[in-house]
């Protein structure tokens, strides 16, 4: 999941669409993010490679919009509404997710289990 400079990043991603929920004055999504290129990557409990400075999902409020949409804790967010999230600062990531004029965010997330599922499915149907 970490990147090699100069090489394209490849990952198996899942598309997740979250509807923002109006709560008082804010539109919330119901999860917390951690990481970013200005953060310390060694303290990320979810990443496999401790130099990975991507945005990770650190907490999900149970019953919130993210939980309903299928986001899991430990997911790495690759894109938000088409915007890249692999090389952003923490603040920029937060801004992209909390735009007031967007009611829906479409995320591309990746996790380790996705890769294994794909591998298993490829093994099951080897000739396809």
């Amino acid at each position, binding site marked *: 999941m970490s990147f090699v400079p100069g090489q394209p990043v490849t990952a198996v991603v899942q598309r997740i669409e979250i509807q923002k929920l109006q709560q008082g004055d804010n539109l919330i999504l119901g999860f917390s993010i951690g990481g970013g290129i200005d*953060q*310390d990557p060694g303290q990320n409990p979810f990443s496999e490679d401790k130099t990975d400075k991507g945005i990770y999902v650190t907490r999900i409020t149970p019953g919130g919009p993210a939980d309903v949409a299928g986001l899991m804790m430990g997911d790495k967010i690759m894109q938000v509404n088409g915007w890249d999230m692999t090389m952003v600062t923490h603040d920029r990531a937060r801004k992209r997710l909390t735009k007031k004029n967007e009611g829906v965010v479409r995320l591309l997330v990746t996790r380790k289990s996705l890769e294994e599922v794909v591998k298993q499915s490829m093994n099951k149907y080897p000739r396809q």
Partner: protein
Amino acid sequence: MDNESQYSGYSYKSSHSRSSRKHRDRRDRHRSKSRDSSSRGDKSVTIQTPGEPLLDAESTRGDDRDDNWGETTTVVTGTSEHSISNEDLTRVSKDLEESTPLECKRFVGPALGGLLSFFALVTPVAFLILPQVLWRDILEPCGTPCEGLYVSLAFKLLVLLISSWALFLRPPRATLPRFFVFRCLLMVLVFLFVASYWLFYGVRVLEPRERDYRGIVEYAASLVDALLFIQYLALVLLEVRHLQPAFCLKVVRSTDGASKFYNVGHLSIQRAAVWVLDHYYSDFPVYNPALLNLPKSILSKKMTGFKVYSLDENTTNNSTGQSRAMIAAAARRRDNSHNEFYYEEAEMDRRIRKRKARLVVAVEEAFTHIKRLHEDEVTSSPKHPREVMDPREAAQAIFAPMARAMQKYLRTTRQQAFHSMESILTHLQFCITHNMTPKAFLERYLTPGPTMQYQQQNGRGRQWTLVSEEPVTSALRQGLVFSLRRLDFSLVVTVTPLPFLRLGEEFIDPKSHKFVMRLQSETSV
């Protein structure tokens, strides 16, 4: 004819004309009459330093009275008791050059300069005194302004005198091969200057017997001012200009590669050479000719290569194949010499370290045998008589146990030529007198010191030859190479300019040094 090389003084005799030889014969014959009984039939030749005639040889042949013998006789040298080998020859010539009589040429320059400056200093005083002496009665008296001028004149002359003494009255340290351009320039300037002032004085003051004394005093004051400015010029040209570093000189000794880098200012080649030599004597380790060569065991194996003799011209392939095989074998064999060199070096290092350890222990032990007697210590009681020694005797007393270890160590490091027993004793005495520890005593022998340490003080000086492709009064510039040669080694000097430095500035506000802990924030969206 034996095979020992002879230092023969015959050459200068045989080149002389016949008539002079005749005179010499007659003169020597007179002398030889008295020593006939002792020297007749004596075929031995005594070698003496040149300049002294070979009396014995002459005396045996003086009786022959053959005027033609100079052309046809071959030199007969029997077995002699004294013979000088090649090394002795170089040593003799070196000693000769060191002991050449004091050259008067050395003092011509300073003497001339001193004369000129004395002349220049006396001139203003002469300008003032001459009118008073010659035509005192018709001089206009001048009061206070003249006295003011007298005072200023006196002080300026005093300043000139003191600064001349401080700057220029120093014994010269080197004779340069060509003229020292700046010094000559300044002397010519001073001479022309003072001469033109005298000319003017003679024409305008002495001739018409000028009456305005104040004008004369002002004239003398202006001369002293101008002399002060010339001295300022001399100070700048001779002392100050070459202080700012501009070039980097690399000095390499040709025999063993010892090298150093020096920064000098704008100098001419000859002045730079003097500067380099000043620093050579205290920076470079002493030149030890015994340390130069690879050990003989390695070199001799290298030297004896394979020799291919082709005895039979008809053999074709066989010989070429054989020679190729031999060359290949020789190449392979040459590969081993670096191996031997490595082991030889390691062995030599080990040996030196072993001898050094023995020497250090011996010296430490020797130093424990004596101690300094303090003034207030009780002088000897009859029960324990103590022999009180002066430093020389103390040194001799403790030298004996360490002498052998010292000699062996010096032999191993090939330094025995530099330290005689007398010098070691003197050094030991010196160290004892100044309360030095054994380590301080040994410092002189464990590391080869600078050449200055081994010099005998004599006023004759050292002879160096400056070899250069450019004229030696030209200034230093990039890429110049010159060398300073002595009898057995030379120093090669390369000149490179110092790089031009472009210094930038960066201002850092002391308040801008701030630090934060590394982030790991979590934001809920």
